[in-house]
């Protein structure tokens, strides 16, 4: 028993989950002063070992830059507040000389504070040539609210948020309004957006496909170009381009793994693959069973509960994978988090379907399995796996599988083994009953 609390402490420091009884036992053991001393020595050694063997985190330089950028913005805010405090002191001095004038000034300041700071309802105003969409449906231009997507027409549009963010949408600009009062966010999907932010009222963040631009008080333009896919070009080779130009004030950016600040007159361009096609070094993976799937999302269930993963429209491979998934498929999703959502980078899956062959072609086979966990019967169409690389190198559908598909009669009961590669690919066919 004496040794077991040490094991429990090790587990706890390893981040393992302990049961309530184990935690109670550990807590009880740590009451004794001699055990506490031993526990401290053990924790100290544990940490020394971890520090000695762990490599410096690859994310460290970028993380350090992010911290310095945060502090840079905090410093700007302090300077700003300092300037305002000086102005207030000057006003107080002036007040002593001319009381009546000061009263008028205070009154004016109060009026401005109420008008700009606002205690009233949320202010989102859209003017000009633009259409608003909610959950993919056109809703006109009235009653715009957070979560809605705005697409500017040929004459461009103007959007005002919270009384302190004036946004100019150039023709073709597409964005989503998010955030909350005094913490305004927009997600710029494409096009050019000029942002004029009144300082000292609230926060403003402009999200772009590769990161964010954060502002205290400034005027700046962000442009996102996602070039259309050229014929024959692979989706993976298309890079989103983002340009940030600052007209006044300072903005902090965290885009495409780079973090820093831009001051008035500065401009910077960024390029990286769009979301879902980036390096997987910072990615997470989740394995589970498909519960629900749509064109742009999949909900999976595992021992941690239910989780929803979104696919970016630019990630064509993920969209094709989603199109092939059905309820009860076992998959592993590699994802990254952005704007509070989990975005799919890739989906891997493997499984087997047992059912009757209900249709087939030269290079595909349709199998109808029994009812799934929701009681639905869903026929599934699968093709052979592609092997051998590019067609010019002799690549093509797996000949062995093609032959087996041709040999299998409609009506036979089969078990197909599949792998996910843009759609479900047959890697094995067992005929159970002809």
């Amino acid at each position, binding site marked *: 028993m004496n040794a077991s609390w*040490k*094991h429990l*402490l*090790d*587990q*706890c*420091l*390893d*981040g*393992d*989950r302990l049961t309530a009884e184990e*935690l109670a036992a*550990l*807590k009880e053991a*740590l*009451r004794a002063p001699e055990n*506490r*001393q031993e*526990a*401290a*020595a*053990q*924790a*100290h*050694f*544990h*940490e*020394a*070992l*971890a*520090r*000695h*063997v*762990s*490599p*410096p*985190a690859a*994310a*460290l*330089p970028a*993380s*350090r*830059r*992010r*911290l*310095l950028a*945060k*502090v*840079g913005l*905090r*410093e700007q805010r*302090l*300077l700003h507040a300092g300037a305002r405090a000086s102005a207030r002191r000057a006003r107080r001095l002036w007040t002593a000389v001319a009381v009546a004038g000061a009263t008028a000034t205070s009154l004016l300041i109060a009026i401005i504070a109420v008008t700009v700071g606002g205690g009233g309802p949320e202010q989102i105003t859209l003017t000009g040539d633009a259409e608003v969409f909610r959950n993919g449906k056109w809703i006109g231009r009235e009653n715009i609210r957070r979560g809605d997507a705005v697409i500017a027409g040929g004459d461009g549009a103007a959007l005002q948020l919270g009384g302190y963010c004036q946004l100019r949408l150039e023709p073709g600009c597409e964005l989503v309004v998010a955030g909350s009062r005094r913490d305004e966010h927009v997600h710029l999907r494409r096009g050019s957006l000029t942002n004029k932010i009144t300082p000292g009222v609230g926060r403003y963040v402009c999200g772009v496909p590769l990161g964010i631009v954060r502002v205290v008080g400034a005027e700046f333009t962000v442009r996102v170009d996602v070039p259309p896919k050229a014929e024959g070009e692979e989706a993976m080779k298309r890079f989103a381009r983002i340009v940030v130009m600052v007209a006044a004030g300072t903005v902090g950016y965290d885009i495409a793994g780079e973090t*820093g*600040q831009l*001051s008035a007159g500065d401009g910077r361009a960024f390029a990286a693959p769009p979301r879902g096609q980036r390096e997987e070094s*910072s990615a997470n993976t989740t394995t589970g069973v498909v519960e629900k799937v749509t064109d742009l999302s999949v909900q999976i269930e595992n021992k941690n509960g239910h989780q929803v993963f979104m696919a970016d429209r630019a990630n064509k491979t993920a969209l094709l994978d989603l199109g092939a998934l059905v309820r009860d498929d076992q998959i592993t999703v590699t994802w990254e988090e952005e704007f509070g959502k989990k975005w799919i980078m890739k989906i891997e899956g493997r499984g087997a379907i047992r059912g009757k062959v209900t249709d087939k072609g030269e290079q595909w086979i349709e199998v109808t399995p029994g009812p799934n966990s929701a009681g639905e019967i869903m026929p599934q169409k699968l093709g052979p796996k592609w092997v051998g690389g590019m067609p010019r190198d002799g690549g093509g559908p797996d000949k062995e599988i093609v032959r087996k598909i041709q040999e299998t009669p409609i009506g036979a009961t089969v078990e197909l083994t599949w792998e996910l590669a843009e759609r479900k690919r047959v890697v094995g066919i067992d005929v159970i009953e002809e």
Partner: protein
Amino acid sequence: MSTNIPTHSPEARAKPSPPDAQDSPLSPRERAFRKLVDAHYETLWSYASFLTRNRHATEDVTHQAFLIAFDRIAAGRAPTGDSGRWLRGVARNLVKRWWRERRKLAQDVVDALGEVLDAADHAATQVQQVELNHALAVCLDKLKAEDRRLISLRYADGRRITAIAEQSYQNAATLRVRLHRLRNALRKCVEKRTAGGTPA
């Protein structure tokens, strides 16, 4: 087949990187803050990583601790004395909150662990740390290849026990006990060396 464990003792690590190229002239408080970051960022990150075992939480805790330090510098109350120890104390308090909120540990358990970690933080001087690292390097070298591999997977690769167990088709509980014994053996070896004063 031997598996080498790369070692990363603080003294072996590279010096802090030079200031970022795009930096504009810094204010005195920013200069003071940068000095603090240069001196302690990596060690605090490592400490937060040890306590949370979660990359995102590690960055959150590290950033919050440094931002608290910046606020104190800005208020003219910069941490005095051993600023590294002060930062670790701040990080511990932040991690305790994280344990309560994210790991759902009860307050009394968090307090008990917090006391242990407070005491652990005062367990060694810098000279003893250097000796400890030296002895660790020697003792790790004496491990069997499979044990070195387990340590490497756990710490160098940062994998969880359940993930290692899954990958190696072993029982996670067995692996936990093995790792626990391995750490005990390493600790005894290190204590013998540091107490005997015969580092390799």
